[in-house]
């Protein structure tokens, strides 16, 4: 059964159509890139999967069910913004995640924090922006979930942090889980993706495996992206 499925999914914000009858299916064990320019509907799709938004039409299913507290327990979400509680120490953030998420693996998280030299007694407020991003990533990736939704995980961080983030995603790979990475920085993530979905102005422009694109078109996904989206601007 696909872990994420969209059937005729539509979302309008008043007169603006953010997603237009999206049909989509993602199986466990795949690392999928959700690629598109800003405003293409990537974040809307992810918010719908989390239940932060309600569809205008159609449906979105997580493991066969509509987004609900039950599905949120198996979905690990990395938002684009820093969603940490500023007065908490790293240890307290770990306590928080452990409290609310049954699939949280505390030892793994503590190990990663130690690896990065982030002291458990440091408060989120005291951390630099880069450290907060890493903290958030560690919390999200330390959950043994069935679906990981990462919204722009590498935008706005330095190259070393970028490497660390991609490395963490690979190391945490679980053949029973799917990872959806929404980004507009394609060249950096291409090597770790199984499949890609091109989203443009709320519609799916392409859904294919990376291997197929390279084999049949002899170009990288990054190059194809530039080509595909150039047409639409004319």
């Amino acid at each position: 059964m696909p872990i994420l499925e969209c059937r005729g999914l539509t979302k309008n914000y008043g007169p603006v159509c953010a997603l237009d009858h999206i049909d989509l299916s993602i199986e466990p064990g795949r690392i999928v890139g959700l690629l598109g320019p800003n405003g293409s509907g990537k974040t809307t799709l992810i918010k719908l999967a989390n239940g932060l938004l309600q569809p205008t039409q159609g449906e979105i299913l997580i493991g066969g069910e509509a987004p609900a507290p039950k599905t949120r327990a198996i979905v690990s979400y990395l938002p684009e913004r820093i969603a940490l509680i500023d007065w908490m120490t790293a240890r307290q953030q770990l306590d928080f995640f452990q409290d609310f998420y049954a699939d949280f693996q505390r030892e793994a998280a503590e190990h990663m924090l130690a690896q990065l030299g982030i002291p458990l007694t440091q408060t989120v407020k005291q951390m630099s922006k880069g450290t907060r991003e890493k903290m958030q990533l560690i919390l999200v990736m330390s959950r043994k979930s069935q679906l990981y939704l990462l919204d722009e995980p590498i935008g706005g961080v330095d190259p070393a942090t970028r490497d660390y983030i991609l490395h963490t995603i690979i190391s945490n790979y679980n053949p029973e889980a799917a990872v959806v990475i929404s980004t507009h920085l394609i060249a950096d993530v291409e090597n770790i993706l199984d499949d890609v979905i091109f989203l443009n102005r709320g519609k799916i422009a392409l859904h294919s495996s990376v291997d197929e694109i390279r084999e049949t078109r002899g170009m990288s996904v990054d190059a194809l992206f530039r080509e595909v989206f150039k047409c639409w601007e004319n």
Partner: protein
Amino acid sequence: MLGKLMKHEFRATARLMLPLYIVIAALAVFTRVSGWVLESSKQNSGLLSVVNGLLLFLFVVSLIASVIFAVVLMVVRFYKNLMTDQGYLMFTLPTDIHGLLWSKLFVSVIWFLGTILVDLLACFIVVYQSGMALDIYNGLRDLFSQLTSYYALNGAAFLLELLLFVVLSMLVGCLCFYAPISIGNSFSNHKGLLSVVFFFAIQFVGKILNIAGFFSLSDVNLNGFYNDASKMASLVHGAAWSLIVYQAAIGAILYFLTWLMLRRHLNLQ
């Protein structure tokens, strides 16, 4: 899940409320001690009087401030935890919006009641004379028995009705802020401004309803009631329960509005 949310809510707010309580208690003790010092000093020291007066003044100010602080904390907490980036964390927890709302409502009411209790205790510390506790107890007991015998009013029931009304009013008070904040936040621009506008709009509608209710009730003929004690009692109970039901209805409407906004129009940036 609600338990966990409430636990977290307490942790987040206690770090501000408990220091406040400690300050109030400390001020109460200082004021009391300075009163003793003033009493026991032989000379007519002007300085001591001034210090004592100042402390007393500060103490009264702190009591008022504690209430304002509790209210402001409740509002800011709701906004910061649910409407800013922290909302991304809270709304994606494996819980529904009801859990998020009730945990905040319950904990806020508990802090309000706690603040009143702490303030009363602090006053007690400042003005306590020996035997006062006994006097108060006896006074309350007399009041109780008077209510029961003279007005055929069930004192205990009335007290419970009063408590229920107070708690409901506190819940409604919180929702009077939660609802406009949720509504204002559903817009893309001028969120803050719109929240304030909706706050006053809700207050306005509430006042209109109060006045309408008041005027419709003033037509009720009370003449037959004054002489008959049991009828009077049922009138009082009836009034109490009408108010309770009224508050509950207002609360339900505001709660529904808040829930609806957060469920369908959550506009986290």
